[in-house]
């Protein structure tokens, strides 16, 4: 699946989200639970702000010296006998992965959760050469079965589906006969996927954090599928976005502790699996051959710009879980596999403003995202920077909006014009108003009044009222 998902038109996507009551109910309850859990886990520590400070320092330092740490990582992996491929584009990454799959004559590929492989459409590339790719994360497995329904959340990809819908998917695709109880659904998936793990020729994982000092990488999971994928197939490929790295184990402790708390409110998830190279001598399980693919795919464009901090993201989704806009429109409305506040910052950077110019506006700028971010990314400030760039540098707004804004600029820059306009406003708006409310506004007001009424400007201007008040001799109360 490419980074872009769903309808091309932003407004259509939003309308679809707003009209989907199932999805909105699921999102509301999930957001509530995740917010509570995160807050409890953060409070328990007592000094959450110190943890955030440390997380932020670690991420800043690492990204400022990304070249050094990636170099160190690749040296260590190669010393252990692993292969490292640096891919500037998604296409390069896919070509390399196809090559490995072909050399290994891989037919069946078991894959654990990885956002970057979604971003580069790796599954499609492997299917093109005749491989069967099986998603083994429960959420992703459900989506894959449901004719590749796109993910709507970066931690819980099937968040938009309720259990009855999931039961129906299993019934239709796998002749499932049991109920919609989550336990029964999960047990069924366990049995189905167990066969796949054991017979897969190739395992593919993502990477939460690579550790430069030892050439290791850590997978943060709960289900155990990533452990299966890295224990059973004889060949393993790990795909990482190039920024997903820390200097050493000391730092791994911090970012993992922040991630598990911020994402799901757990002290640690069930499994943190730190893998270092292929299996060594006298080891029975684990991959005999290991490939690490480090992907740029637009990330280096962000380095050295005012958006560099977006690369500090540890993909916990805490910002998504508190976002009031996400709550209403759901993940698919963003049109990107990266939804929510971090998605609105990142998607236009990894792709471009042509595709994602609306996303920075899909925010009320309330700042809740910035407040919960465990590594202190100033998300809402970055959204404002995007808006400035879209309007001033890129001139991506419509001609009519530019003309209106130009007019407004002249109006407020001239005292006489401003005075006349504010005096005229009540008369000009009278034809549209009913009981002092405008319900169907003209021109630029139309978008506002589509959702709510606009109060008609009062007959008396504040300035006039104020001057009169002085003339009337009223004093401060």
């Amino acid at each position, binding site marked *: 699946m490419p980074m872009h998902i769903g309808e091309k038109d932003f407004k259509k996507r939003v309308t679809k989200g707003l009209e989907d009551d199932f999805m909105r109910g699921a999102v509301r*309850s999930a957001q509530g639970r995740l917010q509570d859990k995160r807050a409890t886990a953060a409070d328990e520590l007592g000094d959450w702000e110190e943890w955030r*400070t*440390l997380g932020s*320092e*670690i991420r800043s330092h690492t990204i400022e010296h*990304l*070249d*050094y740490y*990636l*170099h160190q990582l690749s*040296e260590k992996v*190669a010393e252990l*006998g692993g*292969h490292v*491929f*640096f891919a*500037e584009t998604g296409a390069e990454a896919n070509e*390399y992965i196809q090559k490995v799959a072909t050399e290994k004559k891989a037919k069946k590929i078991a894959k654990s959760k990885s956002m970057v492989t979604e971003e580069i459409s790796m599954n499609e590339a492997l299917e093109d050469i005749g491989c069967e790719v099986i998603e083994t994360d*429960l959420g992703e497995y459900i989506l894959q079965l449901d004719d590749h329904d796109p993910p709507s959340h970066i931690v819980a*990809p*099937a*968040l938009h589906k309720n*259990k009855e819908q*999931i039961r129906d998917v299993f019934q239709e695709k796998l002749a499932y006969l049991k109920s919609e109880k*989550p*336990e029964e*659904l*999960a047990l069924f998936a366990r049995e189905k996927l167990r066969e796949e793990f054991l017979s897969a020729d190739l395992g593919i994982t993502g990477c939460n954090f690579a550790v430069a000092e*030892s050439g*290791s990488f850590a997978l943060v999971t*709960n289900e*155990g*599928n990533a*452990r299966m994928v*890295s224990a059973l197939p004889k060949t393993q490929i790990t795909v990482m976005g190039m920024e997903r790295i820390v*200097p*050493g*184990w*000391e730092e791994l*402790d911090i970012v993992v*502790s922040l991630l598990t708390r911020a994402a799901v409110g*757990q*002290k*640690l998830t*069930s*499994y*943190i*699996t*730190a893998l*270092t*190279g*292929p*299996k060594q001598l*006298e*080891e*029975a*399980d684990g991959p005999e051959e290991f490939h690490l693919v480090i992907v*740029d795919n637009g990330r280096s*464009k962000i380095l*050295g710009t005012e958006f560099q901090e977006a690369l500090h993201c540890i993909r916990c989704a805490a910002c998504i879980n508190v976002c009031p806009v996400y709550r209403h429109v759901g993940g698919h409305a963003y049109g990107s596999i990266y939804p929510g506040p971090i998605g609105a910052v990142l998607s236009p950077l990894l792709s471009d403003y042509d595709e994602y110019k609306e996303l920075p506006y899909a925010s009320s700028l309330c700042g809740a995202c910035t407040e919960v971010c465990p590594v202190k990314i100033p998300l809402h400030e970055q959204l404002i920077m995007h808006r400035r760039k879209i309007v001033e540098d890129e001139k991506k707004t419509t001609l009519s909006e530019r003309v209106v804004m130009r007019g407004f600029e002249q109006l407020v820059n001239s005292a006489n014009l401003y005075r006349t306009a504010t005096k005229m406003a009540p008369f000009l708006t009278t034809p549209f108003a009913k009981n002092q409310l405008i319900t169907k506004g003209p021109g630029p007001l139309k978008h506002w009044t589509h959702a709510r009424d606009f109060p008609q400007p009062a007959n008396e201007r504040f300035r006039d009222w104020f001057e009169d008040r002085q003339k009337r001799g009223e004093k401060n109360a």
Partner: protein
Amino acid sequence: MPKGNIINRDSFLTNVRDKIGGIAADKPVKKPSWSVSPQKKVLEGYDQDQLISVLREQCKEIHTDFYQTTVAELTGTITEVMEEYESESIVYSDDPRFDNANMEEYLQGLNAFKWDRNDRENSIKIAERAEVGITFSDITLAESGTVVLLNDKGQGRSVSLLPANYIAIIPKTSIVKRMTQATDYIHAQLEKGEDIASCINFITGPSNSADIEMNLVVGVHGPIRAAYIVVDDL
């Protein structure tokens, strides 16, 4: 093992370096000393018995059965857990600590298979069918209720993964405060130039998922049930 290939590195890193205005990649970067270290304050001053209490409490959170026993009683406790889990077949790591805890004889009397580091196919096949997997914990984290397994050689990755039930034997001396002490240990190994295990597993209870309506389901791909047995005199 021969050194692996590194492909496209120079052009990739030159581009990164140009963008961030970084230094040449082969010149060492000095890691700054971080301004705060909250991780060192967690459970500060707790002794071993207090840590066991923390671990026992945390086990309730992570749906894990907790037992505390002695070497003399250990086999009895394992029998008790096996009955509780209605299980008979066992796979266990090839680990001298089983012998040190006088367990080899006990295990040989059961339907138990010792992981064979030289036979991939057979070891995986048997582990997949076994009802219980048993390993020792190398480092145990009280705060999160985590057993750390340094999986290499005889300590197969699959032993704690494939069976439906998992038992971790936890020497009291292996219990530390939190992940910080484990990562310090691994970092110290690297500083001394030692190899670290090819797979280090931090295991916190049975597998689970909240992918269906954010309802927690315990037992997905990994074990469905888990028991920790703390042994006081190990």
